[in-house]
């Protein structure tokens, strides 16, 4: 147990030195750290949002949206295709989450069925398709399969992640972390953000922009009842006061994906904030054609299913750009411009959890955490020293080494330090003593039994190691479960706890033993104060 060949001593010392060195960049003040080479700066402990300050948002998608949109898109496609193949359809319904329609002429049933069966793709490895087609007489029903829907949701979430990424990046030099979680959630973490309101406004907006012609044939009674004639729809009108509505044609002239650019600007006539948009070539052509054909008729600018303005087409607009007026402030116009530039979200996202910590509170927490950690280390070390004397020095050396190694290992894995993590660190400083206590108590016992000093030390270590191992395993189990089930800050606690258990076992069992062995070999103690 106390036999340490030279190569082992060197090996252990090397491991310790390396682990401690890894921690150095994290412990240096930022001003010094900035001068280190890039590779050294990468070996760093990340600060959790509760220490760095910032916002954590958990977004959840309305997955029902995806199913509904797919259904609507399929209905649209079906109508277009059937019109093109001159198949008459009737009784089209999307009730109950499935598309069903009647083919008027039984002779054309096959044409329609072949088209319907040709829709969609296979999902995954199996033979399942994303649409299931059935017919009962002349009635064809198309149902979305779960596999198809899951795939669509997955794709929508992937796009949503991209869109959010673009929107947050447009806010400037933030370093957001955007991660998908589970099937329908996205975690957004933005460090150093004081006010998350702007961020939430930016993320929360679907930004589905459409230009549609106003249907002026609709009577006020129809508007009142909300029942629109075929081919039209009734939407709320933001400018028209409380409860105002407006009827528009279902078909869009322009959709959000035809936008090449959007910028906040000021209206040259009265200086109010507006958003100017520029269409891509497809959009420009369509807009030019429609405005030519509909001079002196109003069209509606619709954002997320609300009409935000309905200007008259005074003359054909050939330039491929348009201006959106609404009751904007500079900020809200700017947000809308960013949202439009970054594309629309394929699903609506809701903020279901928000945790924001101000940078000042985070800085306070760090300061108090460091003070508490140092104080804790000092009182523990004094206690160990008065309890175990010279042997306490070894234990204390192991303790300091343990603290530095935790920092080093965390830096190596780029682990995140949270506020509960600091508590975990302090707890570990106390608990790491345990292994040394177990060993020293054992040695005391062996000495009392009248063994010689070297034998007592030797035996003490041998007998204590199973107890140390067992004791650490229970803590590891608890720590692992904490990591698995816990969220952000608690995970930080678990990480420190588990790393601390490993480093403290190493420092107490190996390093402290080596120090004692070297000491015993040099001094050949005959008696031991313990």
């Amino acid at each position, binding site marked *: 147990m106390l036999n340490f060949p030279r190569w082992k001593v060197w090996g252990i010392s090397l491991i310790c030195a390396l682990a401690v060195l890894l921690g150095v960049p994290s412990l240096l003040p930022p001003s010094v750290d900035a001068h280190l080479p890039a590779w050294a700066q990468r070996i760093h402990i990340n600060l959790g949002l509760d220490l760095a300050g910032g916002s954590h948002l958990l977004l959840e998608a309305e997955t029902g949206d995806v199913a509904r949109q797919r259904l609507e898109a399929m209905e649209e496609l079906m109508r277009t295709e059937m019109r093109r193949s001159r198949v008459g359809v009737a009784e089209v319904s999307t009730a109950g989450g499935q598309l069903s329609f009647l083919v008027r002429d039984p002779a054309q049933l096959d044409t329609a069925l072949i088209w319907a069966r040709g829709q969609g793709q296979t999902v995954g490895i199996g033979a399942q398709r994303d649409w299931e087609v059935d017919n009962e007489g002349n009635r064809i029903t198309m149902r979305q399969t779960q596999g198809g829907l899951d795939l669509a949701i997955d794709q929508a979430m992937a796009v949503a992640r991209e869109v959010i990424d673009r929107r947050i990046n447009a806010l400037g030099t933030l370093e957001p972390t955007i991660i998908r979680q589970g099937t329908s959630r996205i975690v957004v973490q933005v460090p150093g953000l004081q006010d998350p309101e702007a961020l939430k406004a930016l993320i929360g907006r679907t930004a589905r922009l459409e230009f549609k012609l106003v249907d002026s044939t609709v009577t006020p009674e129809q508007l009142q009842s909300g029942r629109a004639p075929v081919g039209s729809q009734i939407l709320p009108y933001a400018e028209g006061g409380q409860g105002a509505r407006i009827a528009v044609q279902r078909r869009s002239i322009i959709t959000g994906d035809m936008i090449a650019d959007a910028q906040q600007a000021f209206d040259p006539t009265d200086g109010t904030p507006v958003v100017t948009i520029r269409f891509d070539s497809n959009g420009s052509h369509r807009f030019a054609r429609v405005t030519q054909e509909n001079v002196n008729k109003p069209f509606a600018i619709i954002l997320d299913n609300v009409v935000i303005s309905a200007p008259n087409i005074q003359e054909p607009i050939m330039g491929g750009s348009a201006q959106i007026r609404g009751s904007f402030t500079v900020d809200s116009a700017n947000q809308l411009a960013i949202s439009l530039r970054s594309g629309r979200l394929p699903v609506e996202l809701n903020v*279901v959890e928000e945790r924001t910590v101000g940078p000042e509170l985070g800085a306070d927490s760090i300061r108090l955490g460091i003070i508490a950690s140092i104080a804790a280390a000092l009182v523990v070390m004094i206690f160990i020293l008065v309890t175990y004397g010279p042997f306490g020095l070894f234990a204390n050396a192991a303790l300091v080494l343990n603290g530095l190694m935790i920092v080093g290992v965390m830096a190596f894995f780029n682990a995140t330090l949270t506020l509960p993590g600091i*508590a975990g660190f302090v707890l570990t400083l106390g608990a790491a003593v345990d292994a040394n206590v177990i060993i020293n108590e054992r040695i005391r*016992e062996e000495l009392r039994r009248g063994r010689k000093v070297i034998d007592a030390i030797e035996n003490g270590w041998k007998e204590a190691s199973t107890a140390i191992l067992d004791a650490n395993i*229970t803590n590891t189990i608890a720590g692992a479960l904490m990591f698995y089930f816990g969220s952000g800050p608690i995970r930080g606690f678990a990480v420190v706890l588990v790393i601390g258990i490993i480093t403290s076992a190493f420092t107490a069992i190996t390093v402290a033993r080596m120090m004692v062995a070297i000491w015993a070999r040099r001094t050949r103690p005959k008696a031991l104060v313990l």
Partner: protein
Amino acid sequence: MRLLKLVPDNTNIDFLRWRMFAILFSLALLSASVFFLATRGLNLGVDFSGGQMIHVAFQQPPQLDELRERIAGIDVGEPTIQEFGSPREISIRIPRAEDETVEQANAIATRVRAAITEHYPGARIDSVETVTGKISEELAWDGGLSLLFAMLGVAAYIWIRFEWQFGIGGLVSLIHDFTIVLGFYSVTQIDFSLNAIAALLTLIGYSLNDTVVVYDRIRENLRKYRKMEIEPLLNLSVNETLSRTINTNTAVLLAITALLILGPDVIYDLTIGIFVGVIIGTYSSIYVARFLLVPFGVGPDSFVPKDPVSRAERGAGRNEGFDGAQV
């Protein structure tokens, strides 16, 4: 140099003699905990009940009544307003309304923030936590599961490592510690949040860590002194490991106390739970975990290989012991 010995050498305290007191003490603590949990319950934080928690640092200590009125005035239900660490720092807790939508919850947060910055210029909003109903249910569920698995996991580990009696002894002492710490959260009405779950998980790992070291010694002694009766053997094991238990836990308590006094208020709910847990855990590993082994029938046979040869040897050994005692 004289060294500090919290526990003198060769202690021989007859812990078993005080067993009845310990049982009464434990029962009293347990029933008080259950009583408070049943009547007052836990003061569930936003993590588990949903709603909002806003921490504000004001420039001057605000009039709490005035603040309460101003916040209640914006139609957010019944806000709970408390000092948080210092009179300048206030925590505002807004409960989640029934079937509140996400937008409504967010709108409320925005209004509260706006009201504070309007009425108290210079006030600094330190943190905002908003948890909707669905998420709080998930967090509560996950928290409960993690506690359950942790308990079963460690008990199973002890069972595999030792004998089933030890596993049960460990589990019971764990439930004992756990209930009392929960009772502590209930009596003090300290926010029961994710931090409290972390404290309880730490307690599970930690209280059993103590128990394991002791069980290890009991096993060792069972093998060493096969002729000794179980009760004196437990007493001996307690005494032998006493200084370890006391010294380690003193070190941990010293560290945690430093954190309680000097550390940030934000994790007070975590550290206080660990603090109480360590104290209860120390007590229970001396009394609850060990002496539970007696009724479960841990005896001199518990760690002897079960093959015929050794059984015969053991029989012989036992007779000798019996003879010896008669002489």
